[in-house]
């Protein structure tokens, strides 16, 4: 009996060590003839009921297969918010049937920082600092639209040189923004060289921005009443270099991608958006132009004197991801045309409106004039007052119609500041273009809409 006990404890040690199947032999020991039954037992701590379910002697009805459902079950997959191809912190809830996306719901708000609320606490002079951080790939457009709305409320016109500098800078910004769109779009589809190329060429423009505004992003350069500073010495040389290099590099991209069978196979006839769908979901910008509809606010509702420039609107008919990619490439060429004209026809004169209530005096004047000191103090402590009223102004940003709605109550701060971000509205098209297409095309579809989450969540 004692021997038997030792034998049993030794056996249990052995079992624990190897994590082996239990045996149902009463005497202990490993009874090979009983493994058929014993193997059903799986683990010793399982209760009788579970064992019965496993052996099939008892059926539990907690999982009912519907007759209509195919072998591939529908399942809900979360994509993001930390996903490299969602361009930020966009989250998509996708219902998949095998490889096919059946339903999708974009979930946003992960980058919400309450910028519209902040905008109510900053005065008009500080306003561009806030709005420039919304769409961080095209910051100058945000500043421009805020400044244009403020100027419309005050009823002033900025000098010609300020307008031309604004056009020059925003069109350069359009090029840099589209280059990022091409780069990240290429990366999402697997053209990894495109990623490096796009960011490399963008660097040229960002260097020029740094030289002019002091910062690579979030410039706070375009302000109500003009621009913050004049162009630096020798700016023509830098712009000429940009105008020379970018078309060459775009030719390289075309050589690589335009007739590339993989690129075409991945993009053509994928994520088609018709013009009617664009209207229904309020989609503007390159996506609308890629669906065969000619609409560009620069032509139809011009701002900052852009009607004086000679350029075309590239329009493609297909409405697929390939067309959206192609429209962006063609738009870069048109923007370069505008930049060249702005460079050659840069008027001389002041770059800020000559109104002492709105424009702070230059630093030198403070030592000489008491009045200048007072104006300087008033602008930097209180800000300038804007007459009561409301205004909505829209410009053509690289992603579509970028609008700004400001309500003024007559004080130096906006009573309500709302920015109509194109990315926010364009995201509504994601369910349309992703539904009933393979999951592999989803990434291409997101990249083609080019959402910037800072603009979506604000």
């Amino acid at each position, binding site marked *: 009996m004692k021997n038997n006990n030792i034998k049993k404890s030794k056996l249990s040690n052995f079992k624990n060590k190897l994590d082996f199947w239990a045996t149902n032999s009463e005497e202990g020991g490993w009874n090979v003839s009983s493994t058929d039954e014993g193997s059903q037992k799986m683990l010793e701590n399982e209760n009788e009921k579970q064992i019965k379910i496993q052996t099939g002697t008892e059926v539990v009805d907690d999982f009912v297969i519907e007759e209509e459902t195919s072998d591939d079950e529908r399942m809900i997959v979360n994509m993001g918010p930390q996903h490299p191809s969602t361009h930020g912190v966009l989250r998509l809830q996708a219902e998949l049937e095998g490889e096919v996306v059946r339903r999708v719901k974009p979930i*946003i*708000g992960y980058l*919400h920082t*309450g910028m*519209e*609320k*902040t905008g109510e*606490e900053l005065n008009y002079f500080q306003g561009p600092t806030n709005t420039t951080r919304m769409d961080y790939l095209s910051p100058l457009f945000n500043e421009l639209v805020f400044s244009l709305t403020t100027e419309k409320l005050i009823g002033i016109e900025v000098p010609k040189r300020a307008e031309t500098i604004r056009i020059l800078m925003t069109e350069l910004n359009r090029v840099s923004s589209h280059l990022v769109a091409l780069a990240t779009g290429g990366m999402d589809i697997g053209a990894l060289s495109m990623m490096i190329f796009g960011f490399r060429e963008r660097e040229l423009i960002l260097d020029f921005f740094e030289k002019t505004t002091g910062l690579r992003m979030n410039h706070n350069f375009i302000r109500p009443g003009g621009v913050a500073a004049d162009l630096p010495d020798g700016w023509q040389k830098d712009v000429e270099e940009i105008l020379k290099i970018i078309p060459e590099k775009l030719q390289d991209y075309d050589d690589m991608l335009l007739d590339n069978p993989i690129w075409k196979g991945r993009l053509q006839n994928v994520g088609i958006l018709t013009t009617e769908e664009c*209207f*229904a*979901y*309020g989609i*503007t910008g390159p996506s609308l132009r890629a669906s065969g*509809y000619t*609409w560009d606010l620069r032509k*139809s*509702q011009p701002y900052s004197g852009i009607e004086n420039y000679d350029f075309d609107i590239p329009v493609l008919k297909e409405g697929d991801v390939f067309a959206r990619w192609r429209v962006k490439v063609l738009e870069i060429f048109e923007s370069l045309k505008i930049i060249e004209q702005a460079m050659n026809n840069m008027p001389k004169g002041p770059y800020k409106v000559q109104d002492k209530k709105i424009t702070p005096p230059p630093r030198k004047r403070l030592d000489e004039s008491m009045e200048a000191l007072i104006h300087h103090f008033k602008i930097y402590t209180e800000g300038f007052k804007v007459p009561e009223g*409301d205004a*909505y102004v*829209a410009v053509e940003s690289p992603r579509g*119609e970028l*609008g700004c*709605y400001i*309500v003024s*109550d007559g004080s130096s701060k906006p*009573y*309500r500041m*709302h920015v*109509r971000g194109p990315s*926010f*509205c364009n*995201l*509504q098209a994601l369910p349309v273009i992703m539904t009933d297409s393979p999951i592999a095309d989803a990434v291409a579809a997101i990249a083609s809409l080019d959402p910037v989450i800072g603009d979506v*969540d*604000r």
Partner: protein
Amino acid sequence: MNPVIIETTPEEYKDLIDSIKNDGFEMMVDLTVVDWFRKKEPRFEVVVQFLSTSQNLRKTIKVFVKDEDLTLPSITEIYPSANFYEREAYDMFGIIFENHPDLTRILMPDDWEGHPLRKNYGSGRIPVQFKNAPKVD
């Protein structure tokens, strides 16, 4: 470009939107709210921007919503692009859009209390508590 501004009441709002759609305004580009807390009555002013690309025109609709009822018919059936904007208006101002397909918070977390862009809602003084995170004393 100066838009045509039309002011209306919640009762006539939906019919007016219908007629705007028939007038050839293809796009609803923006919907936002202004809170006139203790300044004007009715308190909320819903501002909707429309764009006609064929006629190159803009139109602005202003609807005044009282603080007591806070409801407005949803226009998502007529303009599907109103979906996100109405959710944003609900999230930020608490305007309830009737017959909206999915009227939930869009920018703030689901369990957030209050409507941040209202004028009686202070800014920057609320400790953020994330969902399912252990409570910190």
